[in-house]
């Protein structure tokens, strides 16, 4: 039995899904009314038969969405056939009269784009509402805009007060469209919302002040006509009663509209003063000087300020007319502006720092500020009178002489310096001859480098026998032979070897052949003879005559070598 139940459930599920997915998606667009009154709320619906899909609504550019989207879905099984429906709704109002076509909503599913049918809506003025509740809601909800003045000058503030008139309880108040202005500065003012009861047209109404705006017009013309739209849910009695006899009510969405009454923006009277820069209101101009007498190492602070009630969005503070003999640094800017029902109040200020450059008395020029007084309706000029600034210091130079063209200049460094420049110099002018500094320097550097470079070249090593040593050797041989010393032959051989070394002939070399190359065959033969005689005489005694001959030949060889 249990098994049969499970199988039945499975078949039902299969049937349901095949019924839903077996056909294409259809999107149906509809509206609660096709002919509506201006600012009359009505609903637009789109319904379609597909799960887990998202509808993209069209652009409702000619309508304002009052509420929504409201979404719902439902599944129906009729005679075994299941259907699934999703629905999206918006409550809207038309912003203008005419015939409008709401484009199709779209839906993407399985790579395919589905579209709804378009909707045609006709918007008319004063269409009688089919629903008496809707008509009653309309009569129970109203808005109004009050202006503080009907006529103002350019730059003079106006306050707009927006009020709702509620003849029945209303909830969910929402500003759909705020008044839109051009060429004006508008600020939403902070205020405590209040409501009060008042008899209006024989009916008790609750009046709710819900918004206050400050307007500062910049150009002449007429302000007005801009529309305000407020939506709210009005609690309307249905005329029926419940089980206990209490009257039944229903909340009906309603939109109330109001237009700003015309306000004339007047141009400022002409002719305008030459120094007028557009300031309007009740203003004051102040120039504050911290000290009028200082020493050379002190500074002065000057504040230039415009304060009061006026169009601070366009007011500019006049530049300081600088005194002579001071270095003036970039000013510091301060402002404080508050917006209230009484207009725009506050100040704008520049703070200048002045450092003296010369000692003496300096005139701080007169400054003027002209504005249009909205109270007396004429131009007024506030004057900051001329003042004298005195700089006392021995460290500063005196003020430059008048007429030198240098009056009124300021400088950072303070030095004691004479009154005039020094006279011309007389030089013996010669045309400048350009020296190729780099070129010649490279050449000289190259020569020095070469000089050092050649020191590194290998040179033939010579056993140079100094002249004095050579003389000593010769003298030693002569003395040895004179004294008939036994080692006289050895000394002679040593002297010859030293002499050969001087010629670059080493001890290991063949002396005769090396000497032949350098000094010739004759000298080599003579050297060989003297050498042989010395060697023999060391072992065999020789006569004095032979010694004398040997010394003579040695002397001759010595000179040749």
């Amino acid at each position, binding site marked *: 039995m249990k098994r049969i139940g499970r199988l039945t459930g499975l078949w039902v599920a299969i049937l349901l899904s095949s019924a839903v997915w077996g056909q294409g998606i259809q999107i149906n667009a509809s509206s609660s009314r096709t002919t509506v009154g201006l600012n009359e709320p009505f609903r637009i619906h789109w319904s379609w038969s597909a799960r887990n899909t998202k509808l993209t609504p069209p652009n409702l550019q000619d309508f304002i969405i009052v509420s929504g989207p409201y979404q719902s879905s439902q599944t129906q099984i009729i005679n075994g056939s299941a259907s699934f429906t999703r629905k999206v709704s918006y409550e809207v109002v038309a912003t203008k009269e005419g015939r409008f076509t709401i484009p199709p909503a779209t839906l993407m599913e399985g790579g395919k784009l589905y579209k709804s049918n378009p909707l045609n809506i006709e918007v008319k003025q004063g269409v009688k509402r089919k629903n008496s509740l809707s008509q009653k809601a309309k009569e129970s909800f109203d808005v109004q805009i009050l202006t503080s003045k009907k006529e103002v000058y350019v730059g003079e503030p106006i306050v707009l007060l927006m009020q709702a008139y509620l003849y029945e309880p209303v909830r969910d108040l929402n500003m759909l469209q705020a008044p839109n202005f051009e060429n004006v500065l508008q600020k939403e003012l902070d205020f405590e919302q209040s409501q009060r009861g008042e008899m209006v047209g024989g009916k008790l109404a609750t009046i709710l002040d819900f918004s206050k705006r400050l307007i500062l017009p910049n150009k002449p013309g007429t302000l007005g006509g801009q529309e305000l739209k407020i939506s709210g849910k009005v609690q309307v009695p249905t005329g029926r009663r419940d089980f206990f006899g209490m009257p039944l009510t229903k909340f009906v969405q309603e939109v109330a509209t109001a237009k700003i009454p015309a306000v004339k923006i007047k141009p400022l009277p002409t002719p305008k003063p030459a120094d007028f820069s557009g300031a309007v209101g009740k203003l004051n101009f102040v120039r504050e000087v911290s000290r009028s007498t200082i020493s050379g190492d002190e500074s002065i602070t000057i504040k230039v300020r415009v304060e009061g009630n006026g169009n601070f969005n366009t007011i500019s503070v006049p530049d300081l007319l600088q005194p002579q003999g001071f270095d003036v640094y970039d000013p510091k800017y301060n402002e404080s502006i508050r917006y209230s029902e009484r207009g725009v109040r506050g100040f704008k200020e520049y703070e200048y720092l002045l450092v003296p450059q010369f000692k003496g008395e300096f005139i701080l020029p007169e400054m003027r500020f002209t504005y249009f007084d909205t109270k007396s309706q004429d131009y007024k000029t506030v004057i900051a009178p001329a003042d004298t600034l005195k700089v006392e210091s021995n460290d500063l130079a005196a003020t430059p002489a008048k007429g030198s063209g240098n009056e009124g200049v300021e400088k950072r460094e303070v030095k004691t310096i004479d009154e005039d420049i020094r006279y011309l*110099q007389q030089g013996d*002018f010669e045309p400048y001859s350009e020296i190729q500094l780099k070129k010649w320097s490279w050449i000289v550097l190259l020569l020095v480098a*070469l000089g050092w470079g*050649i020191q590194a070249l290998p040179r033939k090593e010579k056993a140079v026998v100094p002249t004095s040593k050579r003389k000593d050797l010769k003298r030693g041989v002569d003395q040895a032979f004179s004294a008939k010393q036994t080692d006289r032959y050895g000394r002679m051989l040593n002297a010859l070897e030293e002499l050969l070394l001087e010629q670059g002939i080493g001890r290991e070399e063949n002396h005769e052949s090396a000497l032949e190359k350098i000094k010739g065959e004759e000298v080599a033969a003579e050297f060989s003879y003297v050498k042989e005689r010395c060697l023999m005489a060391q072992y065999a005694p020789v006569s004095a005559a032979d010694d004398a001959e040997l010394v003579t030949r040695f002397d001759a060889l010595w000179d040749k070598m």
Partner: protein
Amino acid sequence: MGQDVNQLADSAKSLYDQGQYREALALYEQISAAQVKDSELFYNMGNCYTRLGEMGEAKAFFERALIFDPSNADAAYNLDWVNLRITDALVEPRQELTEWLSIVLRGIADANTWAMIGWSVLAIATLLLLLHRFGNIRVSWRINLTVTLVGLGLLGAGFISTPKNTNAIVISPSSYGYSEPSTQSTRIVMLAEGSAGKVLSSEGEWHYIELGDGRRGWFTAEQWMRVFPELKLD
């Protein structure tokens, strides 16, 4: 040629004495055009500009006179005088160590003199080296090395003392500094006549200049005068 320029200088002095500063300046400019680069000439031109009230040019020429002779006390004095009377409140361009050293060395002798002394000493060093290698006179290598190093030092002094001044002075009543070499770009700073800066580079009719406080901007070249235009910019 030397006589011609000195005659012009005499005429310029006479005109200056008569208060005809513009005419005197024209003659000094003729002398300058004849490639005369004397500190005295630039000093005299600075004096003419001072008398004409053109403080930017005056400052540039006094600074130029000091480049060619840092010991020109009159030029330094008149430069101070001009600086005190121009409205520039900016910091002067920073002087680097090499610039300071260059001025000190030029105060002793100009770059060419340093170089020529250096060449002479190096030539002597070369001669001694040749004698050491090829001659009979033996010279110690220590003496050779010392003479060579002294020569190189003198030559180095010649290079260091070569002026590398890239300063420029505002000669128009004011000059705006822009973020790019175009008047359509953002204005960064406005300078008064006599303000100074270092020219970092040039592009067409624009100089890219660094001010003494580190700010940089593009300025119209014709509103500035280079203190030492002989130095080519990188």
